[in-house]
């Protein structure tokens, strides 16, 4: 039986050291000998000289002394010696080296048959987080005195968009990698238990119909860069990883990998759009070297202190505002609950008594208390006789909320109890999900049957259209997390982020789904998803400097496809 060493902290909770440029420079000295590799290095470049000319002016003059040593001259500069490593994949050569005495590295793909080359120039200390690798892609060709420069080039592409792979590297590194976007990707480190998925800004380059280059930088985490060539027919990869791990140890190694495509989902950009440019509306006119859109949630939503949270809540509490872009395609509110009196009894959890006075006002109290508390609520009926509603629990110390699904067809109920404040951030919500039954006149609930957690949605991708101008896509990547992608103006996948999630099966094709935007803006979202209607209803619960809010969510879905992922999370993991 395989033993998994789960990490003490998940990636988004690790407080990565803010390495200084000088610390990075000192550590990079070990990289000057070239990358390590669990497989044999390729000697395909030994004895060769190459000059790579790129369209934006970078020229690299290489002389390869053997399989591990080269000299490089950048432009008209003097040559310097460096250690390198190379791998071949399907007649393409991938090699990598640092430039000694600098914080720069080059990861290069050469196609000796077509005389083309793509250079990933990578460097540290180019961002406020010095450990985060910055990169610039240079497309070009291999110069030769006896031939004219080729007209063709490798290009950016969307031909990988929508694919997903299970990769196992020669060093045992075992990942699921999903490419749901033109500029981001999702990865799951299965070797560390695969509980959560994470997202990273990514690049996709087409070499030809068989071969592509993928890169990602784990921005906001370790800052490590991964680049690999992949052959979609052979399902093999050859690449490099460069960065510093959570212990600030240098990671610089080449790897071969074998993979398996786990699925492909739909693309939504126009058919004649091959993704050779990224349609970002606010690209700077003259973007600085290495510019790329990166979602950094803690910059836009900095963590708040407990005092700041309390001050914000004292200033404003917003309850189901009328204008809400997240509910532009909301199901209509229902008055199904009006006039009803019931007790929701949760196993090991709260017992809540309710009186639904109007379509928007209810009274509740914990069983055993005399005082009724009035709250504003909203309810929806996402399936016949199944109602979902949510409200704040005013006066609770952590400004709690509940989002409750009640199935009046069988008396079952599920409660997602949200609270503010975790050990990480005062404005971050947490939740407890409990299953139970409803006691109400005319309803006899079951004794043993309960709603339960499910993996039926795992691997599915759905687009969600909230309102004009706002559409996202969910990829339900693991049983405990998912990612969301927001579309670019040309409907290619754009920025992406992820968070912990839970999936509860209410009925066939009806699910209660909740997620937490941890290490982000702290939102708790709870939805009921009806995959027959391809519609949802739900609530979002959040505190920010403007105050506390609970609001509705409503969107129309389209099926974007499915990845075969559930088998990676089965009982073989312990």
């Amino acid at each position, binding site marked *: 039986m395989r033993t998994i060493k789960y990490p003490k902290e998940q990636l988004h909770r690790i407080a990565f050291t803010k390495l200084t440029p000088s610390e990075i420079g000192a550590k990079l000295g070990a990289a000057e000998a070239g990358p390590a590799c669990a497989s044999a290095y390729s000697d395909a470049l030994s004895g060769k000289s190459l000059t790579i000319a790129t369209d934006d002016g970078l020229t690299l003059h290489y002389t390869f002394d053997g399989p591990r040593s080269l000299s490089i001259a950048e432009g008209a500069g003097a040559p310097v010696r460096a250690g390198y490593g190379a791998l071949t994949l399907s007649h393409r050569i991938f090699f990598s080296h640092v430039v000694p005495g600098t914080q720069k590295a080059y990861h290069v793909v050469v196609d000796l048959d077509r005389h083309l080359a793509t250079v990933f120039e990578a460097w540290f200390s180019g961002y406020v987080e010095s450990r985060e690798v910055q990169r610039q892609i240079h497309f070009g060709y291999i110069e030769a005195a006896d031939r004219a420069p080729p007209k063709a080039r490798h290009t950016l592409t969307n031909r990988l968009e929508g694919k997903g792979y299970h990769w196992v590297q020669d060093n045992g590194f075992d990942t699921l990698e999903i490419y749901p976007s033109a500029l981001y990707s999702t990865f799951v480190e299965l070797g560390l238990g695969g509980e959560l998925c994470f997202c990273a800004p990514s690049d996709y380059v087409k070499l030809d119909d068989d071969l592509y280059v993928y890169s990602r930088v784990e921005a906001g985490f370790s800052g490590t860069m991964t680049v690999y060539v992949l052959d979609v027919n052979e399902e093999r990869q050859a690449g490099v990883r460069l960065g510093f791990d959570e212990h600030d140890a240098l990671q610089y190694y080449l790897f071969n990998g074998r993979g398996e495509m786990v699925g492909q989902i739909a693309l939504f950009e126009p058919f004649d759009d091959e993704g050779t440019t990224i*349609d*970002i*509306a*606010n*690209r700077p006119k003259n973007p600085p070297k290495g510019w790329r*859109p990166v*979602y950094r*949630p803690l910059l*836009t*939503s900095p963590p708040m202190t407990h005092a700041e949270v309390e001050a914000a809540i004292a200033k404003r509490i917003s309850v189901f505002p009328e*204008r*809400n*872009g*997240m509910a*532009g395609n909301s199901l209509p509110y229902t008055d199904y609950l009006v006039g009803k009196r019931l007790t929701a009894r949760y196993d090991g959890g709260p017992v809540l008594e309710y009186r639904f006075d109007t379509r928007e006002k209810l009274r509740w109290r914990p069983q055993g208390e005399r005082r009724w508390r009035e709250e504003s609520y909203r309810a929806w009926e996402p399936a016949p006789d199944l109602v979902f509603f949510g409200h704040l629990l005013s006066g609770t110390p952590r400004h709690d909320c509940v989002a409750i699904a009640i199935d009046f067809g069988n008396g079952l109920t599920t409660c997602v109890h949200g609270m503010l404040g975790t050990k990480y951030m005062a404005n971050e919500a947490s939740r407890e999900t409990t299953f139970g039954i409803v006691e109400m006149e005319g309803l006899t609930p079951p004794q043993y049957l309960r709603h339960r957690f499910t993996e039926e949605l795992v691997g599915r991708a759905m687009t969600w259209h*909230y*309102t*004009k*101008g*706002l559409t*996202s896509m969910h990829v339900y990547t693991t049983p405990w997390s998912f990612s*969301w992608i*927001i579309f*670019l*103006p*040309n409907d290619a996948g*754009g*920025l992406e*982020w992820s968070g912990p999630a839970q999936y509860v099966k209410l009925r066939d094709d009806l699910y209660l789904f909740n997620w937490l*935007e941890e290490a*982000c*803006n702290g*939102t708790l979202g709870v939805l009921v998803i009806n995959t027959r209607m391809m519609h949802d209803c739900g609530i*979002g619960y*959040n505190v*920010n400097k*403007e105050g506390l*809010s609970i609001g509705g969510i409503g969107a129309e879905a389209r099926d974007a496809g499915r990845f075969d992922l559930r088998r990676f999370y089965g009982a073989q993991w312990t």
Partner: protein
Amino acid sequence: MRMKSPPTRSATASSRDRRAFMLTAGTVLSGSLAAAAVAVTPHDRRDPARDDAEAIHDLDRRYGEMLNARRYTDLVDLFAADAQVELYGGVFVGRRGVSRLYAKRLDAGPGGARLDDGEPAHAFMLVKPGAAEPIEFGPDRRTARAQFTRPMQVEAGVALSGSLADMARQQGQGTVRWWEDGVYDVDYVKERGVWKIRRLAYRSAPLSVPPPGSSGAAPRRAFRFTSTFPHDPRGPDRLVGGASHSAVET
């Protein structure tokens, strides 16, 4: 008669370009010119009436071009010193008020401060090729009035917060766009030989003819100013009761 032939671009490209632009065409004077129009005679190489009309049409064209190019500071120079602009229930008065509207309020733009409140911003104006609205000149030919209607693409921020909002804004999105007919009632004045806009009143009307490539997105609910300067640092100088409001409702 001298004709202008400004450059053209495709509407499809414009719908993808957030910086937007104005489709232009050669302006043609309609037959229904004001009575002050003077026929050109062999002895008169220049026709003052037609020159004035051309100048005003050129002024309108430059207004559209600058609006589309978001050259708001330059656009303010098209207005007279005592100009007024009325839209969405507010009146912006004088050079300061007009500057506050264009160079401060509109220039915040989608992606800027107005993103959350759904306030519309005029993304671009589509000139109808061959359009030639009549111009009525005052007796002294120092004032004039015209009304023209142009398809306007309007955009407003989507009222939302959270990670989707942050991500959308970071991609330069988080706005919704729609088409409406923008009806401009404009008074002009000739100052030191140069025609300026003295009063511009804008109101929305349901789109009569969808522009090519438009998605036909339904117009948004009307926005009206509710507070004035200086309470709103970028607000109008006064409010209009019932005037200049959008006729378009969702």
